[in-house]
């Protein structure tokens, strides 16, 4: 029967299988024909800076209102805020605004710089579309009232009206709202109000979610969509940027022609890209980087160009406080002595040493950041603060009603440094007789566990660094607690049901801060002291360490990165949302020079 075979069937098989290979190739053919229309440039590293560690998903959105999903650079490179805040020097820097001040407790007047231009993206020729005026500022503020989905919708409760005459804007308030307004000034970018090139004619759904793929913006760079793909977002410097002419800022301008921020898949891939020189700035936690920095110095090995902000521990600036977050609505976490036992059982310095190889600092018991040191009530810390002590932990545990239940500590699977920290904490807790277990569910599951209040302990951090600890306590004490805590506030569920009247008291104090003028320093400090005391007495959160403002630089292509040892004012080295455009990173980039 085999004798009937005439041709080698291998040949037939090869033809058919090859055919199945052609199909996908045709598929790329069609994609390619769509893409070849765009001008193609392979960006030279001599004129381009590459960064990573910011975006965890591909760049698809340049709408600053789509907080958390916009591409790196949307705030900072494209859209800008009225002021910047430098956490290193604790100073505000006038940015789009020339000046601004409270003329009464409910009235704020600010003047814009002249000559700020709205400029289109590279695909549209970086054309000047118009000038920024007070009307744009008013438009931005009033969105809080007209768009209930906007991220600063809380301003709607404070602001009664805003008017502009030329470049001067007057904002009137229903009641004093020092903190809400302060954070708007340096955190929320000004949007173009024009109906022709701006967002003036956008409906609410567009304002909140539109991709804004051809952004008309005021900032130092313009979107270069031809070089943007699912792996990176690229920008080209904006020759029409206002900053270069401002002497008081030191005439900042960029020496590079392009900036690309690449999508970050995981810290090991990023370390590879960083060590091979593919990226110049990494804003991700890179395990082992301290060892590589030190390996670099003697004999000038391959890694000789690597540096961080500090040359020695903690190497990094601090970015936010990481808490061990108890679920106060569940036993045994609802018991204060149990929380005290846990707080005393955790060996923070071991986490700093082993998990982070000294890249971070252990936290102060209040959790206030090093840059907010002046706000810490040292007397309260001395009286109520906790520190690592197995004996104290065991004693407190005896006083608690702990009955040997198993408690879980969770963080999302894949958040490697936090997972390692949890493993260490679990061991610490077991060491004093608490049955603890690590739990690493998916990000979604972990998030719903926290929002629905079904978790035991979680590792969590406060939103971000800010000029003063108002945000920190807002995050901790905000009331009311809802069934599903969808906003990232009061996740530990500190309310009347769990701790009694003190919850209402704490929240009232936080609201007091908003109503107390920024200039009333003593009154404000008194409120901070009270809040810190409540925090230390009730332990709604257990601060463990400060997450680093991860930044490692390579000088193989670009030099003059921010260093604690350099002369003059230093600026933040972090491209994260909330930092690049708000915390002076953009000024640090203006200092870069070609190696």
């Amino acid at each position, binding site marked *: 029967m085999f004798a009937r075979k005439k041709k080698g069937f291998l040949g037939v098989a090869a033809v058919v299988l090859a055919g199945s290979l052609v199909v996908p190739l045709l598929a790329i053919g069609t994609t390619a024909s769509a*893409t070849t229309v765009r001008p193609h440039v392979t960006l030279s590293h001599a004129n381009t800076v590459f960064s990573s560690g910011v975006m965890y998903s591909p760049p698809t959105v340049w709408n600053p209102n789509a907080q958390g999903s916009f591409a790196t650079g949307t705030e900072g490179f494209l859209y800008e805020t009225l002021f910047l805040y430098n956490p290193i020097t604790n100073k505000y820097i006038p940015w789009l605004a020339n000046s601004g001040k409270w003329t009464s407790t409910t009235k704020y007047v600010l003047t814009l710089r002249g000559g700020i231009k709205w400029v289109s993206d590279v695909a549209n020729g970086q054309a000047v579309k118009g000038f920024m005026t007070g009307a744009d500022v008013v438009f931005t503020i009033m969105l809080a009232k007209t768009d209930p989905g906007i*991220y600063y*919708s809380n301003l709607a409760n404070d602001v009664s009206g805003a008017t502009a005459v030329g470049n001067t804007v007057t904002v009137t308030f229903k009641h004093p709202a020092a903190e809400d307004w302060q954070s708007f000034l340096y955190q929320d970018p000004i949007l173009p109000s024009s109906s022709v090139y701006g967002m003036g004619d956008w409906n609410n759904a567009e304002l*909140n979610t539109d991709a804004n793929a051809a952004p008309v913006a005021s900032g130092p760079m313009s979107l270069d969509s031809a070089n943007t793909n699912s792996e990176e977002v690229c920008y080209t410097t904006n020759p029409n940027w206002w900053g270069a002419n401002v002497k008081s800022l030191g005439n900042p301008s960029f020496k590079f022609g392009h900036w690309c921020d690449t999508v970050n898949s995981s810290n090991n891939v990023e370390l590879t890209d960083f060590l091979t020189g593919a990226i110049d700035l990494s804003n991700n936690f890179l395990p082992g980087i301290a060892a590589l920095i030190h390996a670099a110095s003697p004999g000038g090995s391959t890694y000789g160009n690597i540096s961080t902000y500090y040359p020695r521990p903690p190497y990094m600036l601090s970015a936010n406080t990481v808490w061990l977050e108890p679920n106060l609505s569940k036993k045994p976490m609802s018991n204060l002595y149990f929380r005290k036992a846990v707080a005393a059982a955790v060996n923070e310095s071991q986490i700093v040493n082993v998990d982070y190889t000294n890249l971070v600092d252990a936290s102060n018991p209040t959790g206030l950041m090093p840059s907010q040191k002046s706000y810490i009530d040292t007397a309260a810390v001395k009286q109520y603060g906790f520190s690592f002590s197995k004996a104290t932990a065991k004693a407190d545990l005896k006083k608690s009603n702990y009955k040997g239940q198993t408690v879980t500590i969770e963080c999302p699977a894949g958040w490697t440094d936090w997972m390692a920290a949890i493993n260490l904490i679990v061991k610490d807790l077991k060491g004093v007789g608490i049955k603890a277990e690590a739990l690493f569910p998916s990000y*979604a599951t972990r998030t719903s566990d926290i929002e629905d209040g079904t978790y035991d302990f979680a590792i969590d951090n406060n939103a971000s660094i800010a000029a003063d600890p108002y945000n920190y306590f807002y995050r901790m004490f905000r009331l009311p607690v809802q069934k599903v805590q969808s906003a990232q506030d009061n996740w530990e569920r500190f309310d009347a049901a769990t701790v009694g009247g003190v919850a209402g008291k704490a929240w009232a104090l936080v609201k007091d801060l908003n109503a107390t003028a920024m200039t009333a320093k003593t009154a404000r400090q008194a409120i901070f002291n009270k809040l810190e005391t409540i925090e230390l007495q009730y332990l709604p959160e257990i601060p463990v360490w400060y997450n680093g403002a991860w930044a490692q630089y390579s000088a193989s292509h670009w030099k003059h990165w921010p260093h604690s040892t350099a002369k003059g004012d230093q600026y933040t080295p972090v491209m994260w949302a909330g930092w690049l455009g708000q915390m002076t990173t953009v000024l640090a980039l203006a200092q870069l020079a070609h190696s």
Partner: protein
Amino acid sequence: MRRYFLKKISIYLLTFWVAVTIDWGIPRLMPGNPLQVFLLKFRAQPDAAKYLQAYFYKAFGFNEPLWKQYLYYWDGIFHWNLGVSMFYYPTPVATVIGQHIFYTMGLLVPAIICAYFVGNRLGAMAARRKVLDNSILPASYLISGTPYQWFAMLLAFFLGALWHLLPESNAFAFGTTPVWTWTFIGNFLEHWILPFLSLFFIMLGGWAIGMRNLIIYELESDYAHWLQMLGSPARLVRRYAYRNAVLPQLTGLALALGTFVAGQIVTEIVFNYQGVGLLFFNAITNSDIFLMQGAFLLVIIGVLVANFVIDIVYVLVDPRTRVSMMGAEG
């Protein structure tokens, strides 16, 4: 013949229906709000969060009754409208997959084909000589037991991290745009070598073992003995044995597809290679149910199509079927 294909196709359709239903059902029947993670991205104040939740619930169609969502899902599949990715929001899932499929196919198809032919040849060689049998066979067993991700890590470590010969991650360098230019093609090939090698190598072992065993079996069969008695040259006998052995190997190819999918996914993860496998993995870790559904759908379609292609090849190559077809027609 027709009956055979009808039966085959109906099984494939049934499989497709089951797979799509599972694909649709798992994320929806699991407890929890599918939009929770996505909404968290907007960092909205509590009231604004409620507003956005309502808006997106409607926009993503979660407000419809389940049976309607199910029908819409099928309707979407037929129009290749797989919804909008949350991870790539607001890019449609179909577009996202379209951008990545080339990288997966460009790795997987050459690796499978090369491994198939080279592996079969190796197996045939092993069956020929004792020396080769004693070296190729044990090696093949070891290769069959090697986890894809481990071999990929070995290549990435030695050829990448240690000796810096080839890039150990990404499908092309930063700063290049994926368009048809020589620069890009060169860059792409440079990044393609390591993942290709690691897939190709692990896939080899099984074919070699299978072919070696099949040929030995064929050589023991009556016709081989008969041929030998008739004084046919050994080469000829072997060639017949090889041809007969390729057939079952082809069926084996269909059955191995599932494991190749697994190998592809972990290999893409190790090399951070921007194919559908990495996309699938990202979709799962980022709870992007639409992207996850789309990627899984694509995997299913790929496996089914490949099965079908192999069925056709099988019928085409198998002399007996050819005869029966001709007989049926004549």
